[in-house]
C-alpha cells in the first residue's frame, strides 16, 4: 500500500519545513483557509468517515459539528499528544519524524473549529518530540502557516506546544483541559461537554495526533479517496498499527484500516519472537481493551470488527503474548498501571483499582484465596460505568477479560500457590 501518514518519516531531514513543503506539504492548509469555509472542511471530514485514533473511535466530523457558531468567546483546538496508552507509540513517530504533518493537521482542523489558538498537549516524557515540534512551530510561524493571518487568509490562530509532566490520565480529554489550565489532571463531569464549555470555559475540541494528521490528506485528495481505503464506510482511511510484545519485528506499521491481525503479526511483524512459543493472547487496542485468546485472533483490525468481538481497536496498540506468558503476572502489571495512574477523584476507581492490584499481587505471590477470582471480577463490575471518566472502565475491562478468558490459569495459580506457566517449557 502507498504510504500516506508515514510517507516522510524515512526522508533525510524529514523534520524540516523545506523537506515537508517540497513534497506538497501545507498545500492542504492553504486550500482550506483560502478556498474553503470551516463548514466545508467539517463536511469533508464528515464524509470521509474519519474516526478518532486516540482510543474512542468517535466520528471526527460529528465531534467537530458540536462546536457552536463563533460568538464572542474564543474557540480552542487541543491536540492530544499525551500518548500514554500502554502498547501505543504511533503519535510519537509522527511528531518526531514528520512534525509538520502534525502541525498542518492541527492548523487545518483549527480553521474548521474557528479556533483562536491550538495547544498541542504533549506528554512530558516525549522531550525529543517536544523539541522537534517547537522548532517546527517556529518554522511554521515564519512562513505564515501559524499565528497572524494564516496563509494570508485573515484568520489568526496561535500554535503552542504544552508539555505534560507524567500522568496517563491527562490523555482523557477533560483531564487534559484541567491540566492545561494549570491544575491536577482531574477529569470533569460531563455535561458540560468541551464543545459547550471546555478550556477556560470556552468552546473546545480535542483530537488525537494521528486523527489530525489525516486531515491534510482528506482535504487534498478528498473524502471519497479516504473512504476508499478500508473495508467499509464506517472504518476508513490509512492506519498506524503499533505492534509490540513477543514478535520478531515490533514497531509501527502503516496499512489500510482493517488489516488482518494475523497479517500484522506474522507478515509485517515477522512472526512470533520464538518459533517454539506460539501465540497465546493478544490485546488489540492498547491495554484498556479486553484481551483476545489466540483462537479469537482471526480478525481484522478495524473498529467494528473488534467491537463485534467485544473488544476494540482503541489506540491500535497490539500487544502480543506467547505461550511463555503468565497471564496472572501480566494482569497484575496492567492493574498496577491503572492503580498508579488513577487520578483519585472518584470512589470506585480510586479504591477499586488499588484493591484489584493488591488481590492480584497476593495471587502472584502465592497467597491467592479461592474466592479471589470471582471477587476480582465483581470489583471490576462494580467500577465499570460508575466513574467520572473512562479510566475506571479501562481498569475494569482487562480484569474482566483476563479472568474470564484465562480462568483456568488463574485457578491453577491459586491452587498451586505459584505460577504454573513460567518455569514450565
Amino acid at each position: 500500500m502507498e504510504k500516506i501518514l508515514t510517507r516522510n518519516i524515512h526522508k533525510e531531514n524529514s523534520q524540516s519545513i523545506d523537506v515537508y513543503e517540497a513534497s506538497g506539504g501545507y498545500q492542504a492548509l492553504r486550500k482550506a483557509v483560502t478556498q474553503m469555509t470551516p463548514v466545508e472542511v467539517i463536511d469533508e471530514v464528515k464524509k470521509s468517515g474519519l474516526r478518532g485514533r486516540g482510543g474512542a473511535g468517535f466520528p471526527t466530523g460529528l465531534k467537530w459539528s458540536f462546536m457552536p457558531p463563533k460568538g464572542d468567546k474564543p474557540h480552542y483546538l487541543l491536540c492530544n499528544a499525551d500518548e500514554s496508552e500502554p502498547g501505543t507509540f504511533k503519535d510519537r513517530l509522527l511528531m518526531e519524524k514528520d512534525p509538520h504533518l502534525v502541525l498542518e493537521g492541527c492548523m487545518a482542523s483549527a480553521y474548521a473549529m474557528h479556533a483562536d489558538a491550538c495547544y498541542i498537549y504533549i506528554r512530558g516524557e516525549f522531550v525529543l518530540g517536544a523539541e522537534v515540534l517547537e522548532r517546527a512551530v517556529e518554522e511554521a510561524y515564519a512562513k505564515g502557516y501559524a499565528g497572524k493571518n494564516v496563509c494570508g487568509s485573515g484568520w489568526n490562530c496561535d500554535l503552542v506546544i504544552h508539555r505534560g509532566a507524567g500522568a496517563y490520565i491527562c490523555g482523557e480529554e477533560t483531564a487534559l483541559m484541567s491540566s492545561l489550565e494549570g491544575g491536577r489532571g482531574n477529569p470533569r463531569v460531563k455535561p458540560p461537554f468541551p464543545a459547550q464549555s471546555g478550556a477556560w470555559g470556552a468552546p473546545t475540541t480535542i483530537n488525537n495526533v494521528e486523527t489530525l494528521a489525516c486531515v491534510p490528506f482528506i482535504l487534498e485528495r478528498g473524502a471519497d479517496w479516504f473512504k476508499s481505503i478500508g473495508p467499509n464506510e464506517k472504518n476508513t482511511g490509512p492506519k498506524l498499527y503499533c505492534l509490540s510484545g513477543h514478535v520478531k519485528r515490533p514497531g509501527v506499521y502503516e496499512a489500510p484500516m482493517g488489516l488482518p491481525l494475523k497479517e500484522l503479526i506474522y507478515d509485517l511483524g515477522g512472526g512470533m519472537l520464538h518459533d517454539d512459543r506460539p501465540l497465546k493472547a493478544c490485546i488489540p487496542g492498547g491495554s484498556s481493551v479486553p484481551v483476545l485468546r489466540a483462537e479469537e485472533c482471526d480478525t481484522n483490525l478495524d473498529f467494528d470488527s473488534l467491537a463485534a468481538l467485544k473488544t476494540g481497536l482503541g489506540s491500535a496498540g497490539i500487544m502480543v503474548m506467547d505461550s511463555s506468558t503468565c497471564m496472572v503476572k501480566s494482569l497484575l502489571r496492567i492493574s498496577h498501571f491503572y492503580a498508579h495512574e488513577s487520578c483519585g477523584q472518584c470512589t470506585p476507581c480510586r479504591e477499586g483499582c488499588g484493591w484489584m492490584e493488591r488481590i492480584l499481587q497476593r495471587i502472584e505471590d502465592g497467597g491467592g484465596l479461592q474466592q479471589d477470582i470471582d471477587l476480582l471480577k465483581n470489583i471490576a463490575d462494580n467500577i465499570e460505568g460508575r466513574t467520572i471518566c473512562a479510566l475506571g472502565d479501562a481498569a475494569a475491562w482487562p480484569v474482566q477479560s483476563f479472568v474470564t478468558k484465562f480462568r483456568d490459569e488463574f485457578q491453577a495459580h491459586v491452587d498451586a500457590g505459584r505460577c504454573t506457566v513460567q518455569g514450565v517449557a
Partner: protein
Amino acid sequence: MPKVTIDGVEMEVAAGTTVLQAALSRGREVPHYCYHPGLSIAGNCRMCLVEVEKAPKLMISCQTQVADGMVVHTQSEKVQEAQSSVMEFLLINHPLDCPICDQAGECRLQEYAVEHGTGVSRHDVPKVIQSKAVDIGRHITLDQERCIQCSRCIRFCDEVTGTGELDFFQRGDRTKIGLYPGKRLDNAYSGNVADICPVGALTVKEFRFSTRVWYLKNTPTVCAGCSKGCNVMVAVGRKQELMTSPGQMDDGIKRVVPRVNEEVNGHWICDEGRLSYIGLEAAERLQSAQDSNGGELDWDAAVEAAGAKIREAAEAGALGLIASPRATNETLFAASRLVKAVGGATVGVQKIHRGEDDKLLIRADKGANSKGAGEILGATDAVDVLAAAASGKLKTLVVFGDLLNPDDTIDLGDAASNVENIIYVGPFVDAASAAAALRLPTASWAEEDGTMVNCDGRIQSVGRCHRSRGEGRPGWLVAQELLAAAGGESPEWAEGSEVYEEMANELETFRGTSSAGIGLLGIATGTPAAAGA
C-alpha cells in the same frame, strides 16, 4: 418549569435544579457525600447515582439537571447495587476508628453503611495507611486515613474563605488532604471544615474526645459574639449516670455549630463565635446577690437596697445606666421602663468594637444586639454616661455586665471611684462587679429566652440552652424587680414574650411582630411581610 417524576412522585421545579436538589427539597433523601448546598458541585463520591429512564448509565443526581419529562428512580435495584458497591469501596481503606472517632453518631459513613452497605467486608489485603491526628491548625485536627476525598474542605477554603490552604496531594488511592508544608489552616472560619466533613477526618480540637454526640441536647439560638447574629445550635451535655469520664458527667456547653440561615450566615460561623462558649463556661459566675465585699446578701433585701439607691439618685437627677449590647431586647426594654419609671437617667450602651468588618460574617461591632439597644434605649455608646460618672456627677450607676465573656464587660475607668453606688446586674464575677456596691446575678446569654436585632435589622430568637446559676434570672426580670423597688408600678411580666408584646406595641421597629412569630430563622424588620404573628 420542568416537571420531573422521582420515585413515582411528579414535581415541578425551577429550571436548572438538579435531580438531587429536587429530591431533597421534597424530602426524599438521596445519599451523598461530596455535594453541599453552600459549595460548588464536585461529583466525585458517586454515592448519589440514580437511575434515569432512557439514560444508558446511572447518573449522578447532584449534577444532572432536571429535564422536562424526566423519570428518575432513586431506589431501584440497579441503584441499590451501585450504592452498596460505593459504600464497600469507601470502607476498604477506612480505618476502623469508630470507637475513638468524634464523628460517631453523626457520621455519614456509619449511617449509609447501615442503610446501603453490604454489611460484610471482603477486603482482606493490606489497607492504605496515612497519617493520623495531624495538627493542621489552631482549631483543627486532620486524620488523613479517615478522609473519603470528597473535597468539601478544599472547596470551602477556595470558594468561601478564598484562602486556599488545603488541597489534594499524590494521586490514586494515595491521595490525601494536606496543607502546603509549613502553612497552617488558620483562617477565621477554619472550624467550618469540621462541620462539612462527612466523616471524622477533620475535627475541632476543642470538642475532641469531650463527649459523644448522642448525649448532646441541642438548642437553636443566635451567637452573641458580634452584631451579625449568626444562627447557631448550642449543644449542652447531659448528665449520664453510668459514665465516669469527667466530660460526660456535666451539663456544660460542649460545642456550638452553625444553623443554616440563607439570610444571615448561610451555612457558616466564624471560629471566634464557634468557641465563644469556652470563655463563658470557664468564667466565675455570680451565684447570689452580693455586697461590695462579695459577701452574700438576701435577694429581696439586696433588690430593696438597690431600688432605694436608684430612686434617690434619680430624684437628684444623678442616675446613670449602662446597658450591654449583648442584652436581649426584653432586658433592654425593661431597663428603659425602669429609667422612665424613676423619671429619667443618663443612659448609655457599652460599645464593644474590635478589628474590622470582613467580607464574610465577622463584624467589628461585637455587640450582638447593639442595634436593638440603639432602637430601644436610643443610645449607641456610653461616652456621656461614663464622662458624667467620672466627673462625679452621678450618685448611682446601674451597670449591666456582659452576658458572654467577663473579659468584655465594660471598663468603668475613673467612673468606678467617682460614683457613690455602682449596682452591677450581670452573670459574672468580673471587673465591673468588683467595683459594685451591690451585685445582682442574671442569666447569661445561654440561659435566657429572648430576642435580638442583628446588624441587618433582623429580629432573631435567642434560645435558652442551659439552667441558670444560683439565683441568676433573666435581666428583664431583675430590671422589673428594681423598678418596683424604686417605687414604680411593676408591669408584672411573667414571661419574656409578655415583655416583647408590650415592646411591640410601643416601638415602631417591632410593631406587628410577636416573639412567637419570629421562628427559627428570624424576621426582617421594616417589611410589612415581617409581621410574622
